[in-house]
Each structure stands twice: as structure tokens, then as C-alpha cells.
């Protein structure tokens, strides 16, 4: 006689069924995770509030309107001690963006040159590039920054013994002094002419590409745009009677007056960031070029394209598809690494805001949250742009 399952056994069985149901398990597990995370945040926030109260620190962003009372050695916007902490935030942010933009430009140029050089069939060139890459990327960036700042730039002569180039450019321990442009009446026309030439070149490039797609006839876009970008503003410049002059730096008293000065902190940081990141970019460029299969260049050759045409129309577009994603993450790394500025006192966001402002106000949570938010915004917007670009460039397969 078959055993009749009692109702008690049945309900236990049902419970077991429910317990081994993956959906139920997932739900239970997720509820535990949510409770855990909420509990964790509750714990740290209540602790933080208690500790802040104990130390008599008020929370909130009210401090942003208080007077900062400290100077900053370089600011792109008007700033002095009487401005607010909110203003120091902007000054720091702009300095971070400045060093990142300059670093990205230089690192890209050096990186592409070194990456191509490493593939050169000239043994000496490829070895020099290899040594450059293997040396720089295996040494901490902070050490490189210190080296350029303390060992190289600190060893430069005093303002009186400046190294000068044609009495217009001076290099000394206080920085690099360059002539600055002086805009007189009518100079805006030159600037406008420059922008017209740039926009015209972009339009021209689009038109030339479409025409080549339709008819196969190439157009010397590069030469024409280069000529128009140089010549158009130059012509306007002479027509308007040379409205842009140069102000030369000159030694007055103990220091140079006039001109533009590149402070040594900026120079050291820029050199270190560009050289360091360029070593990584070089490897990306090299692997990108190697990733284009040899058959592609052979196909281009068999179509009768010249070497330049093959590079421009076949090799580089395909290499770029491989190069761009890791290249962007190097740009992001460079931007994040610019925060090392704080170690030598270049007034970037971290140094000005997370350093001085934090010390003066004691508003640790707000200051750190705001600084991290800036980097988060930069990262997220970069990756969104990257994804759009990637979609556009991705290989369309059948």
C-alpha cells in the first residue's frame, strides 16, 4: 500500500519547493542586499552626523558663499583673496580643464609619433621609441612630476640670468615668459576671419568627401583648408592695418613684467603628464595599426591606390576603430591624473578645493562629494560621447 503523504508533509514539501524556486531565492537575496546597503548607509550617515555635531561643524553648502581669503597662483578668471569659496571651486575646475586639455593635445601628438616610430623599419628609430615607452610607463607618474619640478625646473637660473630666445621668450626658475598678444581696434575682424576659414574648411571637407563618394574624384582638402586658415586671417590682418601687436616680457626689478607666464608648476605637470600618457598612447596606436590585417593594405595596393591614399582611405580609418576606445580611456586617465598637481602645488581642483578649501572650512563631506562629482561628470559625459562615436564607427555587418 502506497504511503499517503500527510497534509503536514505536503506543506513542508511546498515550502521546500518555494525555497528552491530560483525566482524566490533571487527576490530574497536582493531584499537582503537592499537592507544591507541601506543599513550600511544609515550606519555611516548617522555616525557622520553625530561626529560632525560633536566637532561643531555645520553641514550644508553655505560655506561656498564665504570669503576664501587665500590667493591662487594661477587663475583663468579674475580671482583674489576677497572672492568666495565658490569662486575657488571654479578657478580650480578651470585649471584642471586647462591642464587636461593641454596634456591631451601634447600626449596625443607625442604618442602617435612614438607609436608609429616603434613600427618603423629603421632599427634605430624603433629602438629609441621602445626605450622611451618602456622607461616612462614603468616609472610612477608622481615621481616623474617631482623630477621635472624639483630636479629640472628648480635648477633653472634666477630671473636675472634667464635663458632668453631673441629677447622675447625667457626661461627662468619662476617660469616660462612668452610675449602676449595685444588686441587693438579692428582685431576682432581677424578673429572672425579665422573662424570663417575654419568653418569653411569643415564644409569643404564634407563636400569633398561626398563628391569623392559619388564621382571618385579626390579634392586636395588639406592643402586648401590649411592655406585658407592661414591666409584669410593674414590678409584681414594687413587690411585692418596690423591691429594685433605683441607685448614682450621685460625684466623690471626682481621679476619679469608683461607677457604671458607659464608657471613652473604647470610646465612640470604638463611635461610629466604628456610624456607619461604618451607612452601608453604609443602602445595603443601601435596595436591599432597592427590590428589592420595585411590583406587590407595589399587590397589597397592592388586597387592602384598610392601609399598616402591607402593610408588615408583604408588603413587609418580601420586602425582608428581599434584605437579610439582605449585612447579615450587614456584621456580620462590623464584628466584624473592631473589631480597629482596637488603634490607640487599647481592650483587644480583637488589642490585648491580639496586641499586649501577643505583645510580652511573643515567641510570634508561637502568638499569631497563635490570634487568627486566633478570627476564623475567628466567620466560619464566622456563615456556617453564615446558610445555615440563608437556606434557611428562600429563595423556594420550584414
Amino acid at each position, binding site marked *: 500500500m502506497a504511503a499517503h503523504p500527510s497534509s503536514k508533509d505536503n506543506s513542508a514539501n511546498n515550502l521546500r519547493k518555494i525555497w528552491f524556486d530560483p525566482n524566490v531565492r*533571487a527576490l530574497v*537575496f*536582493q531584499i537582503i*542586499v*537592499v537592507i544591507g*546597503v541601506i543599513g550600511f548607509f544609515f*550606519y*555611516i550617515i548617522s*555616525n*557622520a552626523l553625530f*561626529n*560632525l555635531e*560633536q566637532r561643531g561643524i555645520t553641514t550644508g553648502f553655505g560655506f561656498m558663499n564665504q570669503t576664501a581669503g587665500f590667493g591662487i597662483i594661477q587663475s583663468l578668471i579674475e580671482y583674489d583673496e576677497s572672492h568666495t569659496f565658490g569662486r575657488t571651486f571654479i578657478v580650480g575646475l578651470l585649471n584642471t580643464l586647462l591642464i587636461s586639455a593641454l596634456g591631451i593635445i601634447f600626449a596625443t601628438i607625442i604618442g602617435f609619433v612614438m607609436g608609429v616610430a616603434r613600427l618603423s*623599419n*629603421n*632599427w*634605430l*628609430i624603433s629602438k*629609441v621609441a621602445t626605450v622611451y615607452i*618602456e*622607461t616612462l*610607463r*614603468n*616609472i*610612477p*607618474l*608622481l*615621481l616623474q612630476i*617631482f*623630477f621635472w619640478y*624639483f*630636479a629640472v625646473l*628648480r635648477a633653472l637660473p634666477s630671473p636675472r640670468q634667464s635663458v632668453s630666445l631673441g629677447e622675447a621668450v625667457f626661461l627662468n626658475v619662476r617660469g616660462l615668459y612668452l610675449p602676449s598678444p595685444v588686441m587693438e581696434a579692428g582685431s576682432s575682424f581677424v578673429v572672425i576671419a579665422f573662424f570663417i576659414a575654419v568653418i569653411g574648411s569643415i564644409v569643404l571637407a564634407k563636400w569633398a568627401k561626398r563628391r569623392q563618394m559619388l564621382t571618385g574624384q579626390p579634392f586636395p582638402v588639406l592643402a586648401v583648408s590649411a592655406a585658407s586658415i592661414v591666409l584669410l586671417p593674414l590678409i584681414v590682418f594687413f587690411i585692418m592695418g596690423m591691429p594685433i601687436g605683441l607685448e614682450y616680457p621685460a625684466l623690471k626689478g626682481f621679476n619679469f613684467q608683461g607677457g604671458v607666464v607659464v608657471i613652473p608648476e604647470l610646465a612640470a605637470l604638463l611635461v610629466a603628464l604628456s610624456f607619461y600618457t604618451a607612452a601608453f598612447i604609443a602602445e595603443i596606436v601601435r596595436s591599432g595599426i597592427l590590428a589592420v590585417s595585411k590583406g587590407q593594405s595589399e587590397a589597397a595596393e592592388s586597387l592602384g591606390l598610392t601609399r598616402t591614399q591607402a593610408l588615408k582611405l583604408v588603413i587609418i580609418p580601420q586602425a582608428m576603430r581599434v584605437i579610439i576606445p582605449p585612447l579615450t580611456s587614456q584621456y580620462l586617465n590623464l584628466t*584624473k*591624473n592631473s*589631480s*597629482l598637481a*596637488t*603634490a607640487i602645488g599647481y592650483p587644480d581642483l*583637488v589642490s585648491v578645493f*580639496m586641499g586649501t578649501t*577643505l583645510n580652511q572650512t573643515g567641510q*570634508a*563631506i561637502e568638499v*569631497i562629494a563635490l*570634487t*568627486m562629482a566633478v*570627476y*564623475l561628470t*567628466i*567620466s*560619464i559625459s566622456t563615456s556617453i560621447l564615446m558610445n555615440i562615436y563608437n556606434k557611428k564607427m562600429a563595423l556594420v555587418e550584414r
Partner: protein
Amino acid sequence: MSVHQFKPDQTPPDMSVGFVGWMKKNLFSSWINSFFTLLILYLVIPPLAAAIEWLFINADWIGESRDACTSDGACWVFVIDRFSQLIYGFYPTEERWRVNIVFITFLLLIAALIYEKTPHKPKLAIFSLVIYPIIVFFLLLGDAFGLVKVETHQWGGLMLTLVLAIVGIVAALPIGILLALGRRSHMPIVRSFSTIYIEFWRAVPLITVLFMASVMLPLFVGSEVDFNKLLRAMIGIIMFQSAYMAEVIRGGLQAIPKGQYEAGEALSLSYWQSMGLIILPQALKITIPSIVNTFIALFKDTSLVLVIGLFDLLAIGQSALADPEWLGFSTEMYVFIAFVFWVFCFSMSRYSIYLEKKLHTGH
């Protein structure tokens, strides 16, 4: 019937073999190549000669103080004078044998793990990832087994650099695995939490993480918990590193063919069984080169702890430069520290390339 006799091979033209042929092919293949070769020789040789002269020929090696540095070359006396501080930091002299034991056992373990024919390698790897760090911790800190306690603020130099980097990678590995699994999980809440954690730490610079760890962590816990500086830095590094580790491991998980997952299911293994027995061993194996690469990045990044006042190798060197007795020898110090970092990183990167090649032939 005459048998056809091959003529003996002719010797290749003199210009295409030997040193001359190599030069012609690799240095002077066209006029533009010749131009670049000469230009680079012109640009490289004089500075290289000057550097060698400065580094070795004219350098001062023996002495006690800066008076010994009389020639124009590098003053290695300075570095030699500070050498033990650069390695051990402020660790008490009579206790340094403990650090030496750690260094030696560490090297032996690494050698055993790299050598291909070591028996019981997986067991050894688990030992060095789980048990060995605990032994090292008690050996370095003391206060147990009759050892004198050495406070962590006395740790420094290369020893601290290694401790930070290794703790960072060892602790980040399990967290990274969990995060990677979480990011690939089917549970939406777990997946989004993991994704947010990973993307957040990857988006911010390490320096801000270190600042956060050093300024905010004490606020987040009750005042009864004692957080020393080293521990705070370690927590910051681990949080940061685990996000990078998670992405590396995610890459490995994605590279495992779907059939492997299905095989686990077909054997009616549970999620953790199939992960632990089938997927993760394979995923970890193929990600070893990438893990080595993130370790190199972490190793270099540990130098950032100097901004929160820890004395790693670079910070010790930097503070030595401020010594009024040795002003003006910064280049020597930087060259030495750079050399130490370079040796570590370069050998690790060679090892990772070697591994990549070795693992590649398997497919």
C-alpha cells in the same frame, strides 16, 4: 644517363649579409632612413655619453657625508647613506630581520609560483593569498609570539610600498570577483548596485579616494573604532582597486564560451558550484596577465599615499631631499627610486607578456 648535378650555392652578395647587410637593411634602406639614422645618432649619442659619464664614470660611491662628493658626477653616497631608510622606513634597526624574513619568503613564494614545475601549485597559490598575508601581518606588526610591537607609523620605504600594493591586490581580488559576478547577475538590484560601485570608483582619481579615506572614514565610524593612517589608506586603495579588478574579471567571465555555463547547468550544478568549479577557474586563469597589469598600475599608484602623509619609497626619498645636509642631490635620489620602480614594473610587464603568449598557444 647523366645525373643532373646542382651547382653549389653561390655566396650572397657581400652587401646583403653580416653587419654591413644588416646596417643597409635596417639603418640605411633609403635616403630618408639614412637621414633619420644620422639625425638620431647625432641627437642620442652625446646625451647618452654624458649620462653614462655622470652616472658611473665620474660618480662618487664611497664616503659618509656630502664632502665626499667632489667630482662632477652623481653623488651615490647620498643614496647609500639613506639606503636602509629607503628600504625599511623608520622600522627599528634591531627588528629589521623580520622585514628581511618577509622579503626572502616573499621572493621564494613568487619564484615557486612562477616556476612551472612546482608541485601542488594551486594549494601554494591559496596559501600565499590567504594564510601567508596573515603570517606576514603578525611578523611585521609584532605584539604576538613574543615579538616587539612595531607601530604602523614606523613602517615605510620599499617595505611599505610592497605592503600597500600586495594588500591592495590580495584583498581586492575576492571583492572584485564578487562585484564581477554581481555585474553579470540576472538580479536587477544586485546588478545595478555592482555597476554603480564599479563605475563610481573607476571614475574618480585615486588621490580623491585617499583624501576621502583619510578625512571622511573617521567620521563614518563611531569614535571608539581606532583607524590609523595606514589602515585608512589601505581601505581606500582596496575600494578603488576592487572596482578595477572587477572589470578585469568581468572580461575573463565574458571570454568563457556559453557552452561552459550550459555544461554546468546540464550537470545540474548550483550557481555557486558551477561558478566555483567550472567558470571561475577558467576565467581567473585567462585574466592572470590582466591582473598582473593592474598590479603594475597599483604598484606605481601606491606612491600617491605621500599626499596623506605615509612614507612609502618615494615619500622617504622626497623627505631626504629636504635634509639641509644633502641639498642639491635631488636627481640622484629620483634616479635611484625610478630605477627601483622600473625594475619591479618592467619585470612584471615582461612576465605578463610571457604569460599572455603562453596562454595564447592553448587555443
